[in-house]
């Protein structure tokens, strides 16, 4: 039995949004009942439309944002009962933008060593040794120890961010768009690095990305989010070969492979992006769905699990099959 690293159950996060002066607040459900299990060594990719709740979910798992309801445990311990310092040795983030996430006034060595000092490690020699080890691990030349962020290329800065996340040797790493600010040649260096580190350090990853080619390359499992919910989950090869949810299909159809003989695909999703403050009734995807049936507007679909895969869509629920047939 694989060791469960992350277990989330019915996790929800609401934000209250002001409608302007004197008009009170409205509730926005950024994450809406997410169940998730990630085992050791897995690379789980979270994909979905801008604003569907990926970053919010990641922040909750990292303990950076409290959930409104639901429960999360990391390595078998409920997240609420893990002290802050222990939590940051379990799970670490790597954020999107290597240009703004590094303090410009601190040297590379002190940026990478900071999480160790936060853990209360004071011995300079210990810190220096671990920083140098970690720099080597991520492919940063030792001469950059005393350099500053503005002297580094985008790829090198992203390596610094990775080194900083790994310096305390966490078990789980959450990468939010780790390569989207980078060009393709640097992107592939970073992806290769993440892959090597996973085997070397026995890491578990959650990777958020808009780039599905990247996802297919690095993930072992994919979870597709739509308006705060995971609507489909499957092993990567299965997901790319045989997507079930109509939204997942639209997503995969939108991938632009570098083939100059093909045009830009029209996914027929339309421009009617759902309003998260006033989400559609029934299945939240129904107004944009090519396969929508009358009852999709009335009742939210339950989940259907088969083999290792999960999908929330009336096309696959018993009721849906009966009515469609």
């Amino acid at each position: 039995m694989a060791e469960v690293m992350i277990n989330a159950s019915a996790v929800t996060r609401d934000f209250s949004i002001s409608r302007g002066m004197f008009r009170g607040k409205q509730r926005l459900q950024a994450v809406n009942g997410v169940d998730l299990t990630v085992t050791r060594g897995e690379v789980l990719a979270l994909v979905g439309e801008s604003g569907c709740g990926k970053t919010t979910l990641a922040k909750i798992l990292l303990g950076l944002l409290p959930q409104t309801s639901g429960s999360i445990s990391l390595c078998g311990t409920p997240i609420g009962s893990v002290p802050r310092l222990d939590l940051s040795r379990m799970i670490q983030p790597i954020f999107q933008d290597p240009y703004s996430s590094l303090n410009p006034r601190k040297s590379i060595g002190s940026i990478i060593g900071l999480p160790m000092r936060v853990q209360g490690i004071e011995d300079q020699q210990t810190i220096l040794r671990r920083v140098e080890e970690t720099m080597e691990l991520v492919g940063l030349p030792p001469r950059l120890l005393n350099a500053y962020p503005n002297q580094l290329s985008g790829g090198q800065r992203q390596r610094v961010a990775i080194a900083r996340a790994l310096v305390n040797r966490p078990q789980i790493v959450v990468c939010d768009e780790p390569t989207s600010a980078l060009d393709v040649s640097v992107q592939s260096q970073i992806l290769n690095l993440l892959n090597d580190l996973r085997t070397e350090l026995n890491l578990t990853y959650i990777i958020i990305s808009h780039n599905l080619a990247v996802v297919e390359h690095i993930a072992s499992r994919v979870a597709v989010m739509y308006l705060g919910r995971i609507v489909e989950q499957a092993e990567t090869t299965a997901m790319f070969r045989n997507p079930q949810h109509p939204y997942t299909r639209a997503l995969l159809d939108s991938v632009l492979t570098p083939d100059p003989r093909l045009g830009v695909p029209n996914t027929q999703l339309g421009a009617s992006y759902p309003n998260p403050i006033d989400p559609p009734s029934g299945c939240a995807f129904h107004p944009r769905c090519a396969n929508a049936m009358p009852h999709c507007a009335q009742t939210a679909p339950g989940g259907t699990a088969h083999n290792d895969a999960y999908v929330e869509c009336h096309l696959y629920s018993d009721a849906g099959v009966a009515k469609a047939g």
Partner: protein
Amino acid sequence: MGNRVLSVRNLSVDIPLADGVLHAVDDVNLHVDRGETLCIVGESGCGKSLTSLALMDLLPKKAIRTIGRLDLNEASILDYSERQMSDVRGNRMGMIFQEPMTSLNPAFTIGNQMVETLRRHRDISKSDARDLAKQMLEKVGITAAEQRLTQYPHQLSGGLRQRVMIAMTLLCEPELIIADEPTTALDVTIQAQILLLLRELQHEYDMGLILITHDLGVVARIATRVAVMYAGQIVEQGTVEQIFENPMHPYTRGLMRCIPVPGKTRPGEPLGSIPGMVPSLIGSFTGCRFADRCDLVKEACRKSDVALRDVAGKTQAYRCVIDPQAMTKVA
């Protein structure tokens, strides 16, 4: 009316810095025809954004632009006054930036900003301008346009904001649009919608389009021609088929190997990459700028600057001294 919307010759941009002059853009020549899409690709920092800002005369203050010719619709605009240029920018050349929040004013409603833009460049009543703004929002696929006009930028999602930016740029029916990474922050479904929209509108208005991006999937699907930049220079240019099917410059070939393609690379298998870094462009530089990272480098590469050479019988050109026969063997 001629076919050539924009033509620029011998464009360079220098930026004086504390430790010397940065030669950020070096002797760039470009042109775009009506209905055509020119994509500019290249590594981060290679000068793509500065090139486009130079065309619009919007460079940062300390940057120094030298330019041989700059023709819009086959007439020089090089000696235009600041006022004339501002008119050109609003009316004839539109620019879409990567992050729409930087070019939308957070303090005004979408409607206010669109009406203002129109009235700055055209003699038109407020209510006519508002009607036109509404029509343009509908044209770019925004539903409930009437309500959107009353909203502020922060109340819209990223995809909607980018559509608003496009609508705003199109209001004055420009001859040329320059879009700098217009879809980088968006997910793939919204990206596809925006690219389709840009193309449709381009055909409708017979515009030229310059698109800057590091996403080679986007380039393959939308470009007519491609210019590949490396360290401030154009190192290869040609039609989209030429660049993707028969890349000549070792850097372009390297880029092509780096693209992860769904179904082609197996999970866990390393992707191709180009080791090494771009050289510093501060001070003077002799020889090929890619030499340090090139597998095929030889002595001649570092001796003198390399000129663009044409591929026999084609519209393709590349900046490399290596014998093409030798190149094919390695690739």
